[in-house]
């Protein structure tokens, strides 16, 4: 029996590999691939380097902050393997240039991505190009590597993946009960209203009563209005007046704790509220403005009281106008924008204090607001090693040896690294098999645009969809459209389904395609009049596909799974919240249940290659027969 290292040499030397992602996993992976003898590597990453990357993305240095990850990674690896070929692309893998033809040139694709959207996209391209895909993800001490080969194993989407948790609008605007609700309010409503695009829809103030002045005036600073006065006015409006208005609606508070309105005069002593000297400290002109620094609050781990949070709120608001006025009206919340994080934290904390929700430090709040995933170098290194091992197996084509490998924090049956055989493809997977879907929707009131945004692009993950009803093309997205075509589609978007050029009514079948992903789906329409606002907030229900499991909150509080417009943008191709419950049972699905990115119904067998052939069935579920092992 020859060592795997020796047997792999020829296929490895000749292989052409695509890596998607040059971040936490990507840096480790590129290094290990290069050391392992790979000579032709292509690498795509759209990101630039940030300071917080440097604790694990070791190919990058402080001097590289702001530069392209893909290019810098390439240069760093060429330093110790100067004679190999690395082609780097500072681009989005969803760009048109990375079409099926592009993917076809590779022997294997290796993902080190950080978001579900891109992973689904790559999955579809690999299926279309018939190129094996090795997927991976890490969060803290946990990680996994999975192999996907068309026709032989499940594709990446055969098992449902959790989507980011979203919250009903009323919870955010009126009845928060968790800190994360306050963060979402502070970030997506208040921050957006004050500093973001004024033309965007905003649910802030939904329940404030009309008082003669139009809503937008309240938040705008009047010409020559004293900044200090403006800041306090805003404070009193959102934390005082708005709460009082909300309290007027008795129904809402029948079974809920009533919030306390907070006014600046109560939160701060009169003398304090007049202090504003520090914000005019001219010697700090070059340094990034920070309310906490101005106020002498040095410890990001400290949980500040209402008074200090109020001071930060006012100071941060003023600093935006004093130092960053040009950006106001265009700002989007960025977790690396210190002042924005300070403002959002303060606002969330003040709101939390109104509603009796525990306050959080800026460190914790930033994690929630920025969907930050905790990450360390060691897990990425382990996962990268496992990816290369699988990649080599794929190149050798011995599919019986392919494994899904899980890196556990708490050992199961003595194993910290647990390999499991892949499953056969899911016959009901709409991505790799051809299952029609069912959409229940009110065809008389729902516009085409809503179906495309909420279902086709969002749930089905199509990037540039095309929608046909019979032979009629009602919508197309992409470049190269004629002016009149585009105008026609724009019109169609605003029509309700029943009034489209080819009417969509009960029983109609839609054909939806994405050419780039080479994915085609049928959706059967069922008309339904009513939808439940709480449980069916989209106003339509898609079934017949593997419905994703919504992530629950972490056992360590609200630190993960935040909603909002930014989607699940997390680092290191994470697994999202993993509780640290010790493993108490032997079943794989229960072991993995604590990892929200896994399908809890996965009934896997651990393959034990001992002489005594001890293959352990971890789950006696009769459904096991439906999921066949890879033969």
């Amino acid at each position, binding site marked *: *029996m020859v*060592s*795997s*290292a020796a047997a792999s040499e020829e296929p490895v030397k000749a292989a052409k590999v695509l890596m998607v992602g040059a971040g936490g996993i990507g840096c*480790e992976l590129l290094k*290990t691939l*290069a*050391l*392992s003898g790979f000579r032709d590597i292509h690498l795509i990453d759209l990101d630039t380097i940030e300071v*917080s990357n*440097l*604790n*694990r993305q*070791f190919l990058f*240095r*402080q001097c590289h902050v702001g530069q392209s990850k893909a290019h810098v990674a390439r240069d760093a*690896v060429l*330093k*110790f393997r100067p004679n190999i070929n690395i082609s780097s692309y500072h681009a989005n893998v969803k760009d048109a240039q990375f079409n099926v033809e592009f993917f076809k040139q590779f022997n294997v694709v290796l993902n080190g991505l950080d978001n579900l959207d891109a992973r689904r996209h790559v999955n579809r391209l690999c299926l279309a190009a018939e190129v094996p895909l090795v997927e991976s993800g890490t969060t*803290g*001490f946990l990680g996994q590597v999975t192999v996907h080969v068309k026709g032989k194993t499940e594709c990446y989407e055969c098992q449902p993946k959790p989507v980011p948790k979203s919250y009903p609008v009323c919870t955010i605007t009126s009845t928060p009960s968790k800190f994360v609700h306050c963060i979402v309010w502070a970030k997506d409503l208040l921050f957006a209203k004050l500093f973001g695009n004024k033309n965007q829809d905003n649910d802030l103030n939904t329940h404030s009563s009309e008082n003669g002045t139009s809503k937008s005036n309240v938040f705008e600073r009047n010409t020559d209005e004293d900044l200090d006065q403006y800041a306090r006015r805003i404070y009193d409006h959102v934390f005082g007046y708005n709460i009082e208005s909300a309290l007027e609606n008795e129904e809402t508070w029948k079974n809920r704790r009533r919030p306390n309105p907070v006014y600046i005069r109560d939160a701060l002593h009169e003398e304090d509220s007049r202090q504003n000297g520090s914000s005019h400290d001219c010697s700090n002109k070059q340094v990034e403005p920070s309310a906490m620094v101005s106020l002498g609050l*040095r*410890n990001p781990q400290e949980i500040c009281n209402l008074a200090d949070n109020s001071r930060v709120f006012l100071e941060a608001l003023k600093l935006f106008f004093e130092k960053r006025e040009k950006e106001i009206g265009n700002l989007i919340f960025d977790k690396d924008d210190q002042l924005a994080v300070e403002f959002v934290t303060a606002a969330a904390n003040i709101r939390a204090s109104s509603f009796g929700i525990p306050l959080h430090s800026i460190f914790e709040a930033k*994690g929630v607001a920025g969907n*930050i995933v*905790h*990450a*360390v*170098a*060691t*897990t990425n*290194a*382990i996962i*990268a*090693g*496992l*990816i*290369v*091992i699988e990649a*080599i197996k794929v190149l050798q084509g011995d599919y019986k040896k392919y*494994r899904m490998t899980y*890196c556990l*924090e*708490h*050992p199961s049956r*003595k*194993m*910290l*690294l*647990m*390999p499991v055989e892949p499953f056969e493809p899911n016959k009901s997977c709409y991505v790799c098999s051809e299952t029609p879907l069912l959409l229940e929707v009110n065809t008389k009131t729902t516009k085409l645009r809503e179906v495309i945004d909420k279902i086709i692009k969002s749930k089905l993950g199509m990037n540039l969809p095309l929608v046909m009803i019979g032979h009629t093309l009602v919508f197309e997205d992409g470049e190269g459209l004629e002016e009149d075509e585009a105008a026609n589609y724009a019109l169609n978007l605003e029509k309700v389904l029943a009034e489209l050029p080819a009417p969509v009514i009960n029983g109609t079948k839609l054909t939806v395609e994405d050419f780039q992903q080479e994915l085609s789906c049928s959706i059967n329409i069922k008309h339904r009049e009513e939808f439940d606002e709480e449980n069916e907030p989209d106003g339509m229900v898609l079934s017949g596909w593997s419905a994703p499991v919504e992530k629950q909150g972490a*056992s*360590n509080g609200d*630190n993960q799974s935040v909603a909002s417009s930014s989607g699940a943008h997390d*680092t290191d191709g994470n697994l999202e919240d993993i*509780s*640290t419950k*010790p493993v108490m049972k032997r079943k794989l699905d229960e072991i993995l249940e604590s990892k929200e990115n896994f399908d809890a119904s996965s009934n896997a067998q651990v393959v034990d*290659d001992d*002489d005594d052939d001890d293959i352990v069935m971890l789950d006696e579920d009769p459904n096991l027969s439906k999921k066949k092992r890879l033969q």
Partner: protein
Amino acid sequence: MGGGGGGVPEELLTAQETALYDRQIRVWGVDAQKRLSKAHVLVCGVNGATIELCKNIVLAGVGSLSLMDDHVVTEDDLNANFLIPPDESIYSGRSRAEVCCESLKDFNPMVRVSVEKGDPSLIDEEFLDKFDIIVLSRTSMKTKLFVNDNCRKSSKHIAFYAIECKGSCGEIFVDLQNHSYVQKHAGEPEPKELTYHSLQEAISVPWKNLPRKTAKLYFAMRVLENYELSQGRSACETSLSDLPAVLALRKNMCDEMSLNESQIPTALLERLVAAGKKEHPPVCAILGGILGQEVIKSISGKGDPIKNFFYFDDTDGKGVMEDIPGPSTN
């Protein structure tokens, strides 16, 4: 370094540390990060697996890292070591420790990385006391036993690790003596304590006392160690031509220890013997990652450490822990 060590002063992390370590502080907390910054680590033996470890702990922010390996860099060293630039004008005539130390410094300016000249078989207790963590690799079993013994003799709590990557297999040994730490249980921190066996004890247990499903690599590595010792070879100095003699030794040892020879498959021994000094880079990454986590756990006093061996073999892809007892099991 035990987790129950003296109180950590209440100084804040610097702004630089907070920014750089943000993502990992979210994993193990500020206290653990502070402890890391005060820890001193010695790594003897620079190779593919240990440089992975070094990368990991430098990135994590240990106080200092000292490298000991006087061997002059050769072309073979470039195979699994990304810290050595493939430029003879840079590495020629210099020790592995020296060249790698230079590269490692770049990874984290807050960590003091330095070279310790010398031979691990000669280091005395006074020298060892400078460190909280010792890692040995590619030294003879005799040296490992000697150093482990000295770690245990010290009044200071010094954690001892040994790591070997042979081809696409690997072994890690852990000795934390008496280790107090905290493990989160249902969200709440729970104090725990473990008592480890010395290396001498861990390799002296009669084989027939071990459970049947004990990792085969445990036995295989002991056979190889004995072979190297009996032949006066330095660590990993074997090749395929040694196989017949190794198999003969296997027979002797198994007879002596009442173990069925099939528990140490010929195929496995063949791979190990043929590997010699070669290391498969993905396996180095895995072993270096696992050991990195162990070092961090031990310094921070957080999380269940491995007790007391870890094995990886890319043939089956399992990363397995074995709790090997000492010789006197009642």
